């Protein structure tokens, strides 16, 4: 059989990075080719080249044996479709409008909405979606919106489907449903590239598995069954230390530092995002907050730090009621916060390390006399932090936005930890970091635990939650669906059920 796609010696350079270094890959009709690698390995770049969103600096793309070069529209004309890592959708518009964008059926100059609606309805039924095509997309769940992304691609008749981390926002059960859809598509003769760094999924769906690292293919086309999860992990990471730091000292005394009582929060549409939520975090405890994103975790964080005002309920830090306190009062009461978005909330990217470390601390006597900042003491303090938090690449006057993600996160950690918080809220603290930086963050969180800080760890990474938490709560639709105290004897499947709103407390 002829391959439907052949990528030959693809090269792509970005300023300072060789994202794809002579990468070759092929794809046959009716197969699912899994492409695996860490963040920044060059998978998405390669796929954006195949989809025409980037132009390669070198190499050839052969579709059906013929050399082609094209933009996105050209790729779609060739039958190539891509589901991006983050949804490419407009939530305010209808499902129909989102799906037909790019290639609407036409009658004269007008869009033929009748024909489009029939076609979209058929696809919606095929994917088991009961929604009306005219309904705004925003009323669908995340899992349903993921299906709409695939429907978009099938609508214009793609036979080559690129799925870039499609399971990142899905529950294990929803992922399994997606894998069945992939099997169906393969049976129709469609060719699929499946990108993921979740090894279990890769082994489940990949007919062939290719591993990328640092812009190169390090393992070409393992056939199904040739490799297990450990083999793939080793190929992904290379010679580095694979072990992630674990919480070796689980369990704490019951001495609550943070108490949340009957917390309610309604969003602007009047939907309850937090429903009568109560929880306690003890001294020296890491409480893991799990759940599919969008089930109230963000609202909990924002009501705790004071960015959102709860509709009802109390927040108590070490005996002090801060339910109505401002953000700065709460910080003074002992809240530290590592934001899930270090690029916008966590840091001022075009500020220096001095600006970032001092913000919120401007009136500290060590740094100012009340009117003028003491530049000398601030820069001495920063020198010390750069040293102790091993922040690499930081030179005087450099903007922190020019650092790597890991080093940016270290600055956030330095600022929040050095304040000596009683409660540390860490939201997705290792998202997008490489293994070295991830371990650094994990180590710091465990150090805080040892110091007696009450840590709330909100993460979408189940492995991380299970490795670090003393205790876990799983959120579902604004409530705690279940609490897990014996993490060592709980499986990811059991937690997956809780994430999907099923299962009982353990």
């Amino acid at each position: 059989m002829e391959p439907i796609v052949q990528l030959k010696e693809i090269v792509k350079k970005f300023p300072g990075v060789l994202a794809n270094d002579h990468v070759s890959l092929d794809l046959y009709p009716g197969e699912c080719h899994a492409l695996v690698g860490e963040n920044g390995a060059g998978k998405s770049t390669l796929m954006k080249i195949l989809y025409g969103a980037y132009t390669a600096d070198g190499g050839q793309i052969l579709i059906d044996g013929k050399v082609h070069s094209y933009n996105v529209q050209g790729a779609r004309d060739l039958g190539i479709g891509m589901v991006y890592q983050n949804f490419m959708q407009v939530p305010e518009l209808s499902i129909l409008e989102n799906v037909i964008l790019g290639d609407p059926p036409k009658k004269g100059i007008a869009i033929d909405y009748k024909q489009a609606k029939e076609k979209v309805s058929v696809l919606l039924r095929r994917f088991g979606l009961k929604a009306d095509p005219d309904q705004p997309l925003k009323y669908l769940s995340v899992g349903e919106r993921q299906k709409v992304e695939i429907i978009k691609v099938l609508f214009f008749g793609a036979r080559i489907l690129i799925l870039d981390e499609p399971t990142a926002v899905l529950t294990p059960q929803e992922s399994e449903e997606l894998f069945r859809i992939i099997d169906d598509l393969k049976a129709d003769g469609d060719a699929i590239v499946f990108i993921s760094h979740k090894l279990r999924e890769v082994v489940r769906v990949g007919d062939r598995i290719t591993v990328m690292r640092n812009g190169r293919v390090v393992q070409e086309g393992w056939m199904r069954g040739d490799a297990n999860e450990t083999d793939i992990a080793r190929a992904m990471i290379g010679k580095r230390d694979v072990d992630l730091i674990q919480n070796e000292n689980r369990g704490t005394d019951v001495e609550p530092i943070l108490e949340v009582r009957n917390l309610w929060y309604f969003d602007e549409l009047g939907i309850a995002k937090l429903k009568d939520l109560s929880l306690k975090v003890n001294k020296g405890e890491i409480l893991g907050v799990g759940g599919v994103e969008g089930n109230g975790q963000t609202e909990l964080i924002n009501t705790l730090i004071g960015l959102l005002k709860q509709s009802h309920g109390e927040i108590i830090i070490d005996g002090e009621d801060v339910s109505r306190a401002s953000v700065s009062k709460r910080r003074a009461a002992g809240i530290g916060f590592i934001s899930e978005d270090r690029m916008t909330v966590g840091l001022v990217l075009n500020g220096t390390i001095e600006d970032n470390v001092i913000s919120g601390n401007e009136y500290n006597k060590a740094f100012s006399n009340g009117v003028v900042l003491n530049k000398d003491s601030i820069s001495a303090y920063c020198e010390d932090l750069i040293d102790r938090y091993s922040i690499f690449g930081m030179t005087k006057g450099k903007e922190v936005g020019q650092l790597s993600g890991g080093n940016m996160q270290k600055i956030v950690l330095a600022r929040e930890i050095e304040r000596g918080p009683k409660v540390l809220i860490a939201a997705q603290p290792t998202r997008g970091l490489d293994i070295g930086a991830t371990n650094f963050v994990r180590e710091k969180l465990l150090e805080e635990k040892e110091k007696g800080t009450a840590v709330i760890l909100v993460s979408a990474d189940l492995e991380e939650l299970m490795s670090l938490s003393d205790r876990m709560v799983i959120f579902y639709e604004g409530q705690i669906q279940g609490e897990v105290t014996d993490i060592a004897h709980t499986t990811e499947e059991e937690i997956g059920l809780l994430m999907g709103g099923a299962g009982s407390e353990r």
Partner: protein
Amino acid sequence: MMDWISLLELGVRHAAPILLIAMGCLLAQKVSIFNLALEGFTLFSCFFAVVGAFVFKNVWMGVLCGVLAGVLTAVIYSVFILQLQVNPVICALSINTLVTGLTRYLLKPIFNTSGRFVMPSELALPTIHIGFLDSIPVVSVLNNKSVLVYLSLLLPFILYYVLFHTEFGLNMRITGLNEEAALAAGVNTKKVKYTALLLNGALCGLAGAELALSVYMFNVGMTNGRGFTALAAVTLAGAHPLVALGTCMLFGVSESLSIQLSTSGYSAYLLGAIPYAMALTAALLPRIIRLVSNNMKKKSAERQAIELHSN
């Protein structure tokens, strides 16, 4: 005693140029460009509409030159903001300032006059008389208007069709709401934005032609804030073409109201504020009422939900 019919009649006349500008502005807003250069686009068009009509001794050549001038300013504006990534506010302010000065200056070398230039009245934009309209009450105010006035009244409906029933309209809306999604679907968003801005320029060109040629003269600063009025009308209407038709008419009628009242001896300065006062009221009052009532409704719904849960 106020004359309602002539109030409306004058209102339509005042609303027409605002409507033309507003429809252009709406296209720009749909692709998420908040165009502050409308004043400059239109004033430049006023000037060249007069130049064209006078030089070619033909009013339609004037309209054409007005449109070309509008498109030219739009080309400059869009190249600066889309290609060279200049801050759109700075760029708009420069265009407005430049056009104000340039038109004032060019009056001298071209017409050898300063402040204003009046053409012979045969170069005025002709009005169209539709016989049967006279016999219908109220609707008769639409009679004896120039072709551009009729066009301005039709445009909201044309734009509605384009935006919600054609592929270009869909591409425009998605480009404005989520440019990445449009790019991922193979839409050439840059082309979409250019097209929207050039149409914006052309429509300001028509507005300039209507403004200047209906009175067959050019007067420095004759746009007199209409660009900003149009911007307000579109923003007020949430960038919906049919709602914008309503808000533009509101501005037109309030302007004619202030003119009518000024003949009865009220202070012209205070009366000049009427359109803005009405716009503010129209914009804010329903919102304040909605805000307060929604807030109360939300609070009580929340209380109910909490009580229901605890029982």
